[in-house]
């Protein structure tokens, strides 16, 4: 038994069906690998706001079950909804970011069905008049979509709605447990047009959407936490569509579509036309859950006590002005002068939510004469590998932009090795309260480059003696052994020397001994 209710595709309207047919014909030419495939998505996002959609209880639903539950959340008689305006603001931001037409007047409707984790017997959603309509999100080749042209994926609507509670079923009895913490958590549902013709494009869309809403602070959009839930509608060759429910990662989206495509094609070959079904995905294969009802009877009714949501054009304009830069703008900016980052590095910064951090470090490096790219290299290629789960969130507090900028400068000045810089990073990640400067830390932990030239030459000679075989292999042309030797020297010098200097000395010594270039 699934918890999620069957949803209509995309809404119960004949005109949308026509669009579907039209787009299918327009698309088939370009298809090579998946001829006749067409997908649309329905994505639920939990909004990043501290209060529930219609009550004042907290939204931290991972707490002890039923610890964040108000009188309204459990639908006690006589309780009434109070709209969380912050949730409206977040929905508005999402709508603006996805180029939607904001509706100056939207309203709330009740969608009825009985379920134990749906306390009121209805979900408040926006069926008749959603907050936003007719948007699009542009997929670019760099988003790893198929082909070398951009694709505008149409958005039918964005609606605000309540989440349900969570049911857990006991394995050893017929007991069911209900946690109402998630009840009434604010969600937006995003419904796309059936504009996706490749499984990879669907994956790229989900990934892009995820980065987008994270970047603008609308949702944390973590699949594992249930903050993002994806349903995919799939049809082949204009046949009936089937809906795969609750896909839990980009990978699952891509592979479930591929699998469903094959299934529908096989059915077609057998001469059994595909009939509309609700499907599941277990990570390996499509599970057929139940036939889709012809028309779902949700008895929608405009909520009789929630006033319409009126948004003045001025207010919408204000939100537009206050929008942070969107990911595509940031990627363009990062990949062009003066940043000139490689696209993949820029995307990595974005994915980890570290673009702002990067900008701050660059600002601190402004008068150093160092290229901004250097800061990106440090973050993407050195620091990210050191981060534990979710530690990217504390990075800017622990390794403040000033500290990172200092370390980058000191490394250039040969005062601090990168190796010891990373030791400092790791120390700070574990001790974010330490407020000392990089200088003070270098002093306290004796990390300053202190190895003088003669000492360094001595260490290098020693390493060449100890690892003669490696040195010989290098001399014989196996260049990779050079870095091994550098590493050995750094280790013996306890990192208190600059790699550049080590390379120079080693290079000279090897040249003297083996006459190599």
């Amino acid at each position, binding site marked *: 038994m699934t918890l999620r209710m069957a949803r209509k595709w995309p809404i119960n309207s004949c005109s949308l069906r026509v669009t579907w047919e039209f787009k299918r014909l327009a698309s088939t030419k370009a298809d090579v690998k998946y001829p006749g495939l067409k997908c649309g998505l329905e994505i639920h996002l939990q909004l990043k706001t501290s209060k529930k959609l219609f009550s004042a209880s907290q939204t931290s639903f991972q707490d002890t079950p039923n610890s964040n539950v108000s009188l309204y959340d459990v639908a006690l*008689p006589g309780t009434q909804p109070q709209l969380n305006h912050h949730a409206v603001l977040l929905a508005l931001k999402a709508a603006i970011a996805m180029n939607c037409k904001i509706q100056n007047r939207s309203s709330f409707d009740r969608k009825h069905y009985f379920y134990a984790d749906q306390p009121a017997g209805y979900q408040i959603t926006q069926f008749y008049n959603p907050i936003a309509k007719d948007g699009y999100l542009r997929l670019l080749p760099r988003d790893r979509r198929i082909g070398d042209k951009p694709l505008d994926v149409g958005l039918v609507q964005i609606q605000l709605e309540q989440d349900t509670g969570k049911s857990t079923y006991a394995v050893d009895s017929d007991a069911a447990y209900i946690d109402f913490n998630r009840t009434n958590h604010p969600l937006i549902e995003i419904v796309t047009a059936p504009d996706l013709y490749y499984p990879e494009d669907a994956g790229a869309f989900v990934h892009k959407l995820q980065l987008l809403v994270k970047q603008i602070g609308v949702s944390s959009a973590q699949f594992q936490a249930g903050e993002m839930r994806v349903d995919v509608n799939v049809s082949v060759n204009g046949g009936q569509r089937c809906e795969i429910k609750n896909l839990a990662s980009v990978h699952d989206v891509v592979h479930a579509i591929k699998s469903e495509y094959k299934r529908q094609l096989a059915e077609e070959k057998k001469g059994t036309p595909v009939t509309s079904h609700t499907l599941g995905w277990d990570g390996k294969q499509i599970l057929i859950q139940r036939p889709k009802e012809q028309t779902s009877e949700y008895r929608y009714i405009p909520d009789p006590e929630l006033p319409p949501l009126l948004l003045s054009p001025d207010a919408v304009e204000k939100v537009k002005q206050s929008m942070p830069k969107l990911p595509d703008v940031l990627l363009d900016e990062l990949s062009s002068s003066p940043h000139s980052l490689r696209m993949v590095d820029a995307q990595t910064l974005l994915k980890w939510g570290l673009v702002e951090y990067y900008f701050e470090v660059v600002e601190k490096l402004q008068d150093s004469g160092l290229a901004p790219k250097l800061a990106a290299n440090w973050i993407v290629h050195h620091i990210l590998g050191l981060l534990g789960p979710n530690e990217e969130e504390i990075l800017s507090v622990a390794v403040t932009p000033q500290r990172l900028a200092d370390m980058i400068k000191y490394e250039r000045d040969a005062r601090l090795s990168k190796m010891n810089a990373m030791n400092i990073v790791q120390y700070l990640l574990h001790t974010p309260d330490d407020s000392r400067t990089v200088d003070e830390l270098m002093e306290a932990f004796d990390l300053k480059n202190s190895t003088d030239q003669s000492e360094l030459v001595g260490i290098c000679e020693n390493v060449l003696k100890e690892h003669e075989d490696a040195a010989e292999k290098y001399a014989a042309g196996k260049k990779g052994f050079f870095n091994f030797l550098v590493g050995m020297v750094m280790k013996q010098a306890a990192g208190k020397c600059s790699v550049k200097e080590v390379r120079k000395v080693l290079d000279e010594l090897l040249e003297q001994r083996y006459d190599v270039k």
Partner: protein
Amino acid sequence: MSILQEGRVCLRNIASQNARLRALISLRDEETVVSELQALDNNSSGDGSRKQPLRGKTVVLKDNICTTWGTTTCASRMLENYKSPYNATIVDQIAAAKAVFLGKANMDEFAMGTDNIHTIYGPPLNPLFPSEAHTTGGSSGGSAAAVAAHMCDIAIGTDTGGSVRLPAAYCGVVGFKPSYGLISRWGVVAFAQSLDTVGIVARDVGAVRTMFHVLNAFDEKDPTSISPALRARLRQRADSLTSPSSSSKFRIGIPSEFNVDSLSPVVKEAWKRTLANLRAAGHELYSVSLPSTVNALPTYYIIAPAEAASNLARYDGVRFGFRSEVDYDTSDPAAAADGVLYGRTRSEGFGTEVRRRILLGNYNLSAGAIVNHYIQAQRVRRLTQLDFDRIFTLDNPLAPSSSSSSDSDVTVDFLVSPCSTDTAPTLDDVLTQKSPLDAYVNDVLTVPASLAGIPAISVPVSAEGGERTVGIQVMGQYGDDERVLGIAEEIMKL
């Protein structure tokens, strides 16, 4: 008389009459009540309670108003043992004004009914008829009966389509439904929110007014509570209209559509006499027409059950309230396979009238019917509101464009009509009604004001022969509550 002495009169009346009248279905502990009354007598204004408007008044609440004391049953098996963890806003307001609660009043189950016969506690009886059982009217029958039998000073009811006015008319007391949205509904169990209004029952208009002033306040917990800004505008208008310099002679409309065929001679005579008296007192009478109100009854019976079906979906036995011994009807494997978990609970927990209205409401909301029924009904409702706006001299402060009336139209300050087609019927008569529709038609005179959200009050006027009373209804423009109370008071004195 001291507060305690006055309170004891009510307690004595409860003790002697409630077993027969069934007006109250739960009582607060008598010792607690007495000590509260005593405390108010003894208190020499240390906490300012002497200045409190309801000081020492005894109050009962319809049992769909949530209180942390006692149960809040809605006269339904579904909530027979339900204890609310919180107070309705109005309960706190009344307590802060130093009234003393005596108990909870009988009602039609979930406020659905016209004769208060749909209650698990047995129908309350009308105190005006000691020898033969007569209905109190519904759904706030217990509230009206308690006031009529002097079991309390003031009773709180709820009025969705006439549920305070009709029982007041039948029981010979005053029943007031204020403008929609003035009194908080937080903690008032919903029947049909777009119509539900807290109402006040008392033996005179003065007591109603005092209570109204206590309750007429913005409540942020109620999304339909009228905003402080609009309240300020309404107050300003009321102040200027009731200033000593403004005229106390009014233009009174007689709505021809309210002269329905089913009006009994006794009601018609009382209406005519009231109008004649008003004219003799210097007011002007005008015949007016509200053509859309002829559709008010079917409109009401589409909107209210639809909202009710939605509101009552929460009663599933999972979190609170009644739950059937058996979840599934095991003899019906289809039902079990379908996952119909709550059928038994809801069938056994709700009474026949509630079940009927849920079915009616769900039908009207179903995909095939909603556009033709519910959406259409909302349009007709809008027409009804426009009809009233056209007739009243005052503008509707909620309407976006003012003065929808053309210059040639007659406009009036108030409308005066009967509140019910007849005086209270006998219990036997209503229990032997063939069709539920027989009860629904009684609402024909009260639902127009509910659909329009305008203030309406029923005041008792003695019937010919003097034995019985007839409820005369006064309706005014939205927000004109103070003047409606004023003219009602005058009618009672005529």
